[in-house]
């Protein structure tokens, strides 16, 4: 079956759960508004199962209903891994064989974001999810600049160290901070490398959409639950591959 619908307790019953707050007092009108909104989302029938006034001016709703929409899996853009998953040994071999020198990897948390756990999970030997971080890879020279790094500092460092790849983490997403910062970074890098080879630009963070790389002007986006090996494999595949 290529077309799927949500599953509550029977095939194709289409059941979904929704919750939201409306900036109006809890009354019959509010319930009506919630239902109307649910219908616009495609819930039909929709039932408001919970209504709770939050202070005098807001109302929180829980709605259940049958979703009229469905998805054709054959039309779903899948962010499948487009590179082979290698072992650390294979990654090192690839780099040695193709790049014929150690790969220079620069990592940082830009802007005012101080969330380093994510980038450290990828870079530090300690690693993540049972996998060792990039520092563990003999053929990689990893420089972790830490957090709150200004974009131009980072670009300067990249040029100074002849970085092959620049890895940046963005965890704070309120007001799309991560998107703004990423675009700013992309512009700066492209400006700094008007012609000729430039380092691979990789961003990561829990709230990124892996599909948005092109749109944000970077080469690759890694999101929730990324493991170091995925990143290493991507680097080996892309850089070493290119060099070959």
């Amino acid at each position, binding site marked *: 079956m290529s077309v799927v619908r949500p599953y509550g307790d*029977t095939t194709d019953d289409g*059941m979904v759960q929704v919750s939201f707050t409306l900036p109006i007092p809890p009354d019959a009108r509010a319930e009506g508004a919630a239902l109307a909104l649910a219908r616009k989302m495609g819930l039909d029938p929709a*039932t408001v199962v*919970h209504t709770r006034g939050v202070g005098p001016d807001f109302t929180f709703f829980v709605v259940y209903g049958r979703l009229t929409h469905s998805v054709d899996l054959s039309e779903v853009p899948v962010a499948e891994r487009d590179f082979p998953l290698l072992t650390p040994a294979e990654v090192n071999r690839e780099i040695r064989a193709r790049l014929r020198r150690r790969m220079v990897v620069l990592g940082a948390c830009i802007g005012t974001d101080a969330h380093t756990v994510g980038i450290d999970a990828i870079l530090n030997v300690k690693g993540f999810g049972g996998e060792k971080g990039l520092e563990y890879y003999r053929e990689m020279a990893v420089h972790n600049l830490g957090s709150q790094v200004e974009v131009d500092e980072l670009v300067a460092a990249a040029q100074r160290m002849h970085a092959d790849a620049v890895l940046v983490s963005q965890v704070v997403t309120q007001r799309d901070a991560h998107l703004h910062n990423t675009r700013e970074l992309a512009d700066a890098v492209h400006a700094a490398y008007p012609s000729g080879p430039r380092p691979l630009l990789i961003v990561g963070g829990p709230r990124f959409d892996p599909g948005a790389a092109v749109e944000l002007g970077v080469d690759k986006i890694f999101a929730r639950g990324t493991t170091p090996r995925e990143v290493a494999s991507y680097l080996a595949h892309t850089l070493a591959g290119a060099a070959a």
Partner: protein
Amino acid sequence: MKLDLDQTTVALARELARRVGEPVVDMAKAHTTTSVERAVLRLAGLSGADGDGLPWPNHLVDAVRAQVGLQHGVALPVWDALLRGQAGDLRELAEKSAAGAVQFRLPTGRDAEVARAAAGTAAAAGLTRVRARRTEREAMIAELGDPPRRPWIYLIVATGDIYEDIPQAQAAAREGADVVAVIRSTGQSLLDHVPEGATREGYAGTYATAENFRLMRAALDDVSRELGRYVRLTNYASGLCMPEIAALAGLERLDMMLNDSMYGILFRDINPLRTFTDQRFARQIHAHAGIIINTGEDNYLTTADAVSGAHTVTVSQLLNEYFAKEAGLADWQLGLGHAFEIDPDLPDSFRLELAHALLARSLFPDAPLKWMPPTKHMTGDIFRGYLLDGFFNLAGALTGQGILLVGMMTEAVVTPFLSDRDLALRNVRYVLDAAGALGEDFQPAPDGFIATRANTVLGEAIDLLHRIERDSLLTAIGEGTFGLMRRPADRGRGRDGVLAKAEDYLNPVADLLEGTADPAQWKGAA
């Protein structure tokens, strides 16, 4: 972690329960029902239904009743007819009788002897099949093992379609369910026959049929082997066909059955005499099948208040225990029910829950109590519901409950979604793993809030038992003592299916189970 209750008070409570229950048992012993008789035929091997889905056991019992009455039981007329060559076997006899082509009579003298013997052999054969399924279960448990720990995790599926139920039940087992219950379509309790075959059209539950039992048990056997852990199957011996369902459960190796002495009366408006009579025979079969019963005290707290009605739960548990043991069930088969139904907005509600749960635990130390989740105070606020279920799980762990029925955050909304069940199981796992052993540090102060409350409830239970002893249980039920449901003794569905036994009444199955039958046959059968 128990309460130390005053043991003479506890003994008094049990003695009062006996005095309240005995007259009801005597009444049940003096009667039979259409469903009891049909159960006898089912155990003797009769199954199937006519084109309209009316089962052959119904046809045969109705025919016998029409011609010679049921006060003697179906056994004598039926096996007499067979011996007289009216038909080659029960099925043929049923079909012919449906066509009005059988002459039944009440055999006497020598004929009666032979008929009795033949019936006994047939009954023994049936009970032997039930026993065989029990042995089968014991073998599988010996091979695969029981759940690693208490409480057993009990999950419900209720899609109405056995073919949706099966994958959901298997998914539930894979995610940690030790017991899977398939609840029944809203209507089944009121049907005076057991539907046939695999069914797909239940409302808020799936019909209990022999075939559905078989399909689900087979599916669970598969996961049991896959998981290396015997996953138990539960259904409901309840409603107008209680004894027949009990028989089918024994024949299809179900492992637990919901079976309460009063649920049908209170919540299905089934006639009290009918219920008590059906129940006694159903429990005798459960005892033989090695099935664990679950009683329904939890239901009372959905219609009555869980604090002011707490003692009615205790009284009902004591009565269920008395009736169960009288019917031959052992302590390990008594999944006495209680529930986490106190208004969560009541101050100290959680401590009150602990007090009530501890009381049950301490009153019935050897019974695998069935701990039911919050339902009445669940609302569309699924987040709050998920939290309440977490505290329900904690209370279960702290008070050492035996069977934990997993609560669903969507209790007030829908019959559980697949995802609700998964979330619910992870809730249980978190609480049991993170805080399960907290009992070590949880010591109700001897005169503290919890111990005091537990003793108060026990005291109220004893007072109520005194009152019931004076007025009789039927009066108490008529007055709405349990769950605030008023059910007069002479009302309710299925009354016309109840008959006073005649002198020469014969129930070959009961005779074997009660050991009053000729042991020879029994051995012959075993």
